[in-house]
């Protein structure tokens, strides 16, 4: 299955990497979740300032293309020698979607971190994963002082499909963050088995 004349071969013998995206608005708890379940590592990438920002920031004589460095949350969980789970956290704003397109490719699924005080911040992430057809779960981070919402209320507010899992979590706790990831993986397994039933052969 190797494409002839290319050294970009499809990987067959390296460890299998499972990629999970952690999305959500600023301050929704992405960094907290990634650091509570995995060995977190700093990862920087460059952001191309979007055109509207360039226009706002434009100064005469300044180069049109402008980049700035963005820190991403990046964590790894070694399942066994030949199987590693990578967590990538990226901000939910539209201007970061250039990263998401690459990250979403081949990803197992995504966790959308929701802060009930700013539920609208989750809309772009939910929209994005729905359009991409990527399995996702919504994790409602229960901040102290925030009004407790029932998962059903969050589901209605975000207009989610009935089968999308909504879980309450406290991202500061390893066990709680772990349960969110387990929910996502189980959901992905369920979707696969359902699609196999629907498309025999």
């Amino acid at each position, binding site marked *: 299955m190797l494409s002839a004349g290319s*050294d970009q*071969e499809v990987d067959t013998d*390296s460890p299998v990497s*499972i990629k999970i995206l952690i999305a959500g608005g600023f301050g929704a708890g992405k960094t907290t979740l990634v650091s509570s*379940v995995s060995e977190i590592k700093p990862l920087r990438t460059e952001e191309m300032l979007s055109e509207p920002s360039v226009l706002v920031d434009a100064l005469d004589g300044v180069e049109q293309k402008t980049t700035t*460095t963005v820190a991403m949350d990046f964590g790894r969980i070694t399942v066994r020698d030949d*199987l590693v789970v990578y967590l990538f956290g990226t901000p939910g704003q539209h201007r970061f979607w250039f990263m998401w397109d690459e990250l979403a490719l*081949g990803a197992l699924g995504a966790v959308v971190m929701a802060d009930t005080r700013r539920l609208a911040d989750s809309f772009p992430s939910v929209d994005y994963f729905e359009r991409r057809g990527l399995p996702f779960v919504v994790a409602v981070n229960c901040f102290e002082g925030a009004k407790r919402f029932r998962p059903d209320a969050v589901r209605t507010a975000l207009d989610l499909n009935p089968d999308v899992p909504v879980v309450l979590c406290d991202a500061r706790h390893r066990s709680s963050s772990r349960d969110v990831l387990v929910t996502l993986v189980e959901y992905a*397994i369920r979707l696969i*088995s359902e699609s196999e039933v629907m498309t025999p052969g």
Partner: protein
Amino acid sequence: MLSTVTATRAGTSSDLQLEPEYQEVVKRCRRPKPVADLASDLDLPLGVVRILLSDMRENGLITIRQPARTRPTDPQLLKDVADALRRL
């Protein structure tokens, strides 16, 4: 970001004559290593690392393999992942 980088025989054998940045990459990629891991270890932005790797590949010092571009669908593999996560 999860493409894996592996030093070639040419890369490891010419290690000491290489530029310091190349040496750092070769040293870390004796076994296949994802680009994101490498960027994090080198503390360099992804874009910088990609340019570095592209040059190194042209010089035959490394090979780059793409990860699967489709979602993992092997139920057993995913069950193993779920089990491992439960043990965290």
